[in-house]
């Protein structure tokens, strides 16, 4: 039994524009269907129609067409922020909540509870309280609580967008389990990096219309479509895309192992990495001295961290959640004061300055844009830092930035009405008008599609070209390696490594220790014996071309 989306059109008000336009496709039972498309393409509206939020909660719109499913079909949703979706103090309470609502008997609740805990390998969490779980664990419990209600269709809305690599792995394995157990799953996500191996069927949406309906492999072979939709695809597939320009015989691959086997047959193995001389001797702009932070509950968040941030570089802070990354950067801009140790900007301690004073030199852009936006228009938001710090700016500069980052039409818009990715871009752009010469970005790619990520890359280049130092925390490891010049690696509050990217890429054991995978291009450069490590797909393809048999 498949579920048919039949000619659905929707607008939020009588005289509004159609956000969905004659949408037709089929959701196959027991398969994983991915719906992809840039922000604003109508994905979220589609979820609301499937889950009957339209019309039961949002009633003003006009819905034409229908979503055909048998009477009593139950659709449930896992959202991108599990904290809004877990009702109950303990893990068991939260999982039982939905079942209790359905009025299921206690014996059956017990039975289903055991079933989902076993299926998703969550038995070890059952006696924990929700508040103490990590992001990945929380999302897993959230999936379990929805699954326990035995939905006919399970929708996941960007379920890993806010998770660290460990959390992503956890949800990835759960998605795999769901596929094996034959749960009909709809994944709504413009990032297919983590799910590429599991998805069966892909629907591409653009401006409310279906522009692609086919299998995963067909989708990954259609390069222009991926670009048009701004879908973030696994780097392995990008490698395939670049290499297929030079090698006709190459076949589509998704995993590192497949990539390696295929490429090995095409080329003569290289002679291995050339040794390199360590030459990262830029003067540091910020230094930390035995930085130690113990929180009031006794948690040692940072221990004796001595680090140098070289001026004019892009510096990545790497580590799993809980390794102390955010705590570390909050010390740099003065939000946290160390338990002991010192932070110095150009040699002078910043401990006695207020956060606002430090922001003239060092500015921190937060993970969640909603915390930062509080002006009435995009224009005022953009100039917020400049006005707070009394930095002059001209109308021309303002227009330039608005034009360059596609915001001129939204100049007078209320910032909170922008899409998540654009909101984030706006908060980051506002530092362009600040006097700070160190800019810290905490998870800047959150909610961004491929187009916005490209804009972000552009902007970081603009900043470093102007001699500014950029510190970036991100779980998007391939992007980090592409952008960064050097890195600081933290693990459980201790610094494991500090130095340039080249040196870091050669230390595989460090990545094993923190359970983060090297980007595919870096791993392949090494295992295929290239003379140099490549950080971008283009560079890598060039090198492989030269080794062609």
């Amino acid at each position: 039994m498949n579920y048919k989306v039949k000619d659905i059109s929707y607008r939020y008000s009588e005289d509004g524009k159609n956000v969905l336009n004659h949408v037709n496709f089929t959701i196959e039972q027991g398969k994983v269907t991915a719906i992809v498309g840039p922000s604003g393409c109508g994905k979220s509206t589609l979820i609301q129609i499937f889950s009957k939020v339209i019309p039961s909660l949002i009633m003003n719109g006009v819905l034409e067409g229908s979503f055909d499913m048998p009477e009593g079909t139950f659709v449930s949703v896992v959202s991108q922020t599990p904290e809004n979706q877990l009702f109950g103090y303990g893990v068991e309470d939260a999982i039982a909540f939905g079942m209790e609502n359905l009025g299921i008997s206690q014996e059956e609740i017990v039975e289903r509870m055991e079933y989902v805990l076993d299926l998703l390998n969550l038995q070890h969490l059952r006696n924990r309280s929700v508040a103490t779980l990590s992001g990945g664990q929380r999302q897993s419990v959230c999936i379990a609580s929805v699954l326990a209600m035995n939905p006919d269709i399970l929708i996941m809305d960007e379920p890993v967008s806010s998770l660290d690599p460990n959390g992503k792995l956890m949800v990835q394995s759960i998605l795999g389990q769901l596929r094996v157990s034959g749960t009909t799953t709809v994944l709504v996500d413009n990032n297919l990096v983590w799910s590429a191996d599991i998805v069966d069927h892909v629907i591409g949406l653009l401006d409310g219309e279906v522009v692609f309906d086919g299998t995963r492999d067909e989708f990954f072979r259609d390069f222009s479509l991926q670009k048009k939709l701004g879908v973030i695809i696994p780097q392995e597939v990008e490698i395939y895309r670049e290499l297929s320009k030079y090698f006709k015989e190459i076949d589509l691959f998704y995993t590192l192992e497949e990539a390696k086997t295929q490429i090995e047959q095409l080329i003569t193995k290289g002679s291995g990495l050339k040794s390199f001389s360590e030459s990262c001797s830029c003067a540091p702009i910020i230094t930390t001295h035995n930085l130690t932070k113990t929180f009031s509950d006794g948690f040692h968040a940072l221990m004796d961290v001595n680090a140098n941030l070289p001026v004019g570089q892009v510096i990545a802070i790497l580590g799993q959640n809980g390794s102390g990354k955010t705590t570390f950067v909050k010390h740099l801009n003065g939000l946290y004061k160390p338990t002991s140790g010192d932070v110095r900007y150009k040699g002078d301690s910043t401990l006695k300055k207020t956060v606002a004073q430090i922001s003239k030199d060092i500015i921190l852009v937060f993970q969640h844009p909603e915390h930062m936006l509080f002006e009435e228009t995009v224009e005022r938001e953009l100039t917020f830092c400049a006005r707070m710090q009394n930095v002059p700016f001209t109308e021309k500069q303002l227009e330039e930035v608005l034009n360059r980052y596609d915001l001129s039409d939204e100049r007078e818009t209320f910032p909170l009405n922008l899409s998540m990715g654009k909101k984030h871009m706006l908060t980051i752009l506002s530092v362009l008008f600040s006097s700070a010469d160190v800019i810290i970005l905490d998870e800047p790619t959150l909610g961004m599609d491929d187009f916005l990520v490209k804009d972000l890359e552009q902007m970081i280049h603009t900043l470093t070209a102007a001699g500014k130092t950029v510190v970036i925390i991100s779980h998007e490891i391939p992007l980090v390696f592409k952008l960064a010049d050097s890195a600081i690696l933290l693990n459980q509050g201790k610094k494991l490594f500090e130095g340039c990217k080249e040196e870091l890429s050669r230390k595989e054991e460090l990545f094993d220790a923190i359970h983060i995978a090297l980007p595919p291009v870096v791993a392949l450069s090494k295992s295929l014996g290239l003379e140099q490590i490549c950080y971008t797909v283009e560079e890598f393809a060039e090198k492989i071309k030269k080794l062609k048999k």
Partner: protein
Amino acid sequence: MEKNFYEMNIVGCIRQLPRVRVADHFEIASFVLLGDTELVVKAAAALAEKIPEVDYLITAEAKGIPLVQELARILNMKRYFVARKSIKPYMTDPFITEVYSITTQKKQILCLDKEESNMIRGKKILIVDDVISTGESLKALEALVTKAGGKIAGKAAILAEGDAAHREDILFLEPLPLFPVTVSR
């Protein structure tokens, strides 16, 4: 697990100083400047921005020598002085001070050639060293400079160890703690 070194960040150079037990109740972290080009260059540059205007620099042999050399180079000084701990054959007419050391319970001498002591007379002199700890060698150098008729314009070091870090009269880049040892059960 006891760490057997102390890590610190000195003007952007992160160094691990081995910890050495020097008495029953405490350990010190031993700081070796000799041979460390990067640190000498960066520390000298940082010190050069802090020190007052002077005519000459002086240090006592041996660990302060690379630092004073680099500092003099940055400050464009053609000469600097190194006080020796014994009279050398080249000294035709040695200029000597004798100091009694409390820690070693011995008499110690510092000396310069007469020609050098003459150059010092009436000039503003900066005393330079790698680490200032008890301040004893500093005192000896002060005595030597004063006896030669120089005016001490300041005292500078890369590290100030233990109580020296609280002294107002010295310029330094980083404090270096002492490590008390709780006697094992």
